[in-house]
């Protein structure tokens, strides 16, 4: 276990050995978050995956060429240039397969992904047996490794990440149109092919500069996960992109730091795991689209429905006892309520408990129930809404009276004051008269 002082040193970028690596993965994360948003919205995630796998042969071949020319073969810019060239070759192979055959996109992508990766693995083995070359470390391009980095390497990554981010912001409007409605974009005269190529070019750039730290297998997760996580929090593009950039940046920063502190953990895996944790948190807790807030909203609606059912049942019992028209709030026996709806004993007990807590019920002796003043007012209002809606359905929506109760049940709970008012006006204008309890406005 690393000591606290060491942890703080790495995380706050004070450690000279890890500073450049952590900074570069943070910048990489920002760029990946921005460009990944478009990749996700363009529904091209798989294409990005194929692209990153296609970079491996380039790494191996570039190494071999550099060794033959008499170097160590470990120059990062040289290796990344090779990766770029073979990544682009992979893309063109995909396009070629798609445009000349009738194979579907996923077949073309799967083909390029596996074949190029296969060539890459084979050629890595081959270059390792080159005389005088030490290819050790090239495997880090597959899984990612926070090796210490020289300043020029860092500058290369920082500049590319910066330019890619700027371009993605500059073309925000054009990419938005392309991702949302490419046919409309084309009809408007936008060069959709060029825009697609540009977008994939940005993806290539991020992939290539992320090869060393994240590795080619996991880089696609680094592109897609922050954007997917950000999507849970917002319904607008720009906030989504900024949030995605932030999530990507934090993942890169924390992931590389953790990996630097624990020598046996590959950086790519840790970075992706941090991003995945943020994704999981977003999926569970983000208010607009998260799972738990949605369950909570459903639970609240169900409780509201239960409460309104209870109040209407109580009001109808009083009506049956006293005749329709002028109903007053009197105690009524509990079994009457049970027979009103198909509640189980347990359900009814919990409904009554909630009603007591909400001050809709008053003590009324054993076996008896009595609505409170506010409960009675609310019951009159709920019943009224139900009947207004029922009447509307029968007379104007042509729904059979036998079905109306159920349909009214579904909608009445969400009728707002304006809609109720509209219903009242409408039914009054059409002079429909049905027994509707008087409006309990004083209460509400």
């Amino acid at each position, binding site marked *: 276990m690393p000591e606290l002082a060491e942890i703080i040193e790495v995380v706050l970028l004070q450690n000279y050995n890890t500073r450049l690596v952590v900074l570069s993965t943070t910048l990489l994360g920002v760029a990946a978050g921005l460009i990944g948003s478009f990749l996700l*919205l363009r*529904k091209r995630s798989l294409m990005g995956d194929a692209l990153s796998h296609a970079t491996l042969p380039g790494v191996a071949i570039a190494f071999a060429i550099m060794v033959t020319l008499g170097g160590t073969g470990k120059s990062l810019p040289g290796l990344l240039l090779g990766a770029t060239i073979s990544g682009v070759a992979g893309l063109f192979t995909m396009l070629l397969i798609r445009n000349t055959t*009738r194979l579907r996109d996923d077949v073309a992508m799967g083909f390029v992904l596996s074949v190029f990766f296969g060539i890459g693995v084979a050629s890595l083995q081959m270059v390792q047996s080159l005389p005088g070359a030490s290819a050790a470390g090239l495997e880090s391009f597959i899984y990612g490794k926070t090796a210490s980095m020289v300043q020029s390497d860092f500058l290369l990554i920082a500049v590319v990440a910066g330019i890619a981010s700027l371009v993605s912001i*500059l*073309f*925000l*409007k*054009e990419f*938005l*149109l392309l*991702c*949302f*409605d490419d*046919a*409309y974009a*084309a*009809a*408007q*005269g*936008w060069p959709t092919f060029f825009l697609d190529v540009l977008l994939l070019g940005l993806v290539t750039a991020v992939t290539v500069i992320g090869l060393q730290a994240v590795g080619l297998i996991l880089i696609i997760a680094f592109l897609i996960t922050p954007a997917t996580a950000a*999507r849970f929090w*917002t*319904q*607008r*593009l720009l906030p*989504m992109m900024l949030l995605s950039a932030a999530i990507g940046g934090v993942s890169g920063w924390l992931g590389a730091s953790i990996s630097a502190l624990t020598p046996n953990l590959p950086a790519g895996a840790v970075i992706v795991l941090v991003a995945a944790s943020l994704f999981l948190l977003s999926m569970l807790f983000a208010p607009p689209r998260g799972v738990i807030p949605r369950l909570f909203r459903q639970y609240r609606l169900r409780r509201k429905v239960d409460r309104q059912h209870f109040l209407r049942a109580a009001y109808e019992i009083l009506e049956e006892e006293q005749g329709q028209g002028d109903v007053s709030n009197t105690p009524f026996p509990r079994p009457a309520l049970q027979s009103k709806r198909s509640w189980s004993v347990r359900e009814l007990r919990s409904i009554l408990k909630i009603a007591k807590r909400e001050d809709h019920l008053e003590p009324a002796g054993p076996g008896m129930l009595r609505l409170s003043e506010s409960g009675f007012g609310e019951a009159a209002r709920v019943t009224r809404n139900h009947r207004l809606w029922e009447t509307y359905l029968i007379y104007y929506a042509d729904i059979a009276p036998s079905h109306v109760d159920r349909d009214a049940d579904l909608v009445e709970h969400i009728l707002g004051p304006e809609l109720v008012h509209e219903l009242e006006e409408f039914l009054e204008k059409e002079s429909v008269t049905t027994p509707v309890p008087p409006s309990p406005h004083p209460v509400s």
Partner: protein
Amino acid sequence: MNQLFKRLSPAGDAAGEDLSFHPDDAPLAIHDLTVAYHRKPVLWDVDLDIPDGKLVGVVGPNGAGKSTLIKACLDLIPRASGEIGIYGKPYREQRHLVAYVPQRESVDWDFPVSALDVVAMGAYRRLGWFRRVTKEESEKARDCLDQVGIGHLADRQISQLSGGQQQRVFLARALMQDAELYLMDEPFAAVDAATEEAIVSLLRTLSEKGKTCLVVHHDLATVTTYFDWLVLLNMRVVASGPSETTFTRENLQKTYGGKLSLLEKAAEALKHTVD
């Protein structure tokens, strides 16, 4: 040559009678258009001249090539042969005059944009590269949403709109373009009554302003009340002309006739020989 084609094709009869009509300046003039998907022709020798300021309904059975016709006009799909003139010039020179309303299902509505954002896309061409949507354009987009009756939903995310409201967003985006010719692909498909009414009144307004609308439609019951010019399409133009004279039992039989038309059989045969 065109005259010859007109006399040969049924489409020519109705259009030829109108002597004040100059096809060269027509909003849309199609000559000898053939379009094929994977070598199987879907539109076959289409000749069509749409007069100015008309509300044109395009009807025909499924697979008749109605959407294809619109896409071909917009250069969205390659054509095997033929020429299409928009006010006398090729489409690429006349883009600013044409607004396109695609089918609603053609996009993913769970997209992180608001209704207003989508409508503003109608101004992107005017704005050009890199320029953000200006305040004036944003106001104009709001105005276009008002015109289709959903101004109050401007800031709503588009997945939270009903199908009809989504369709109206697309119409507002087309309005945003200030075009002369409107090409609409099934705007009435699966919309509520209020939306249908809103679209019809919008079409009337556009027509009163002298704009031309070409609308793919599927409901034969309403086609004569909504449109004053009809194109009956089934891989070729069966008939084209004023609604009253074109909407005849005979023409409909020719368009919707149950048996495989000879053209369709030929198309199938062609497909199999090339494969």
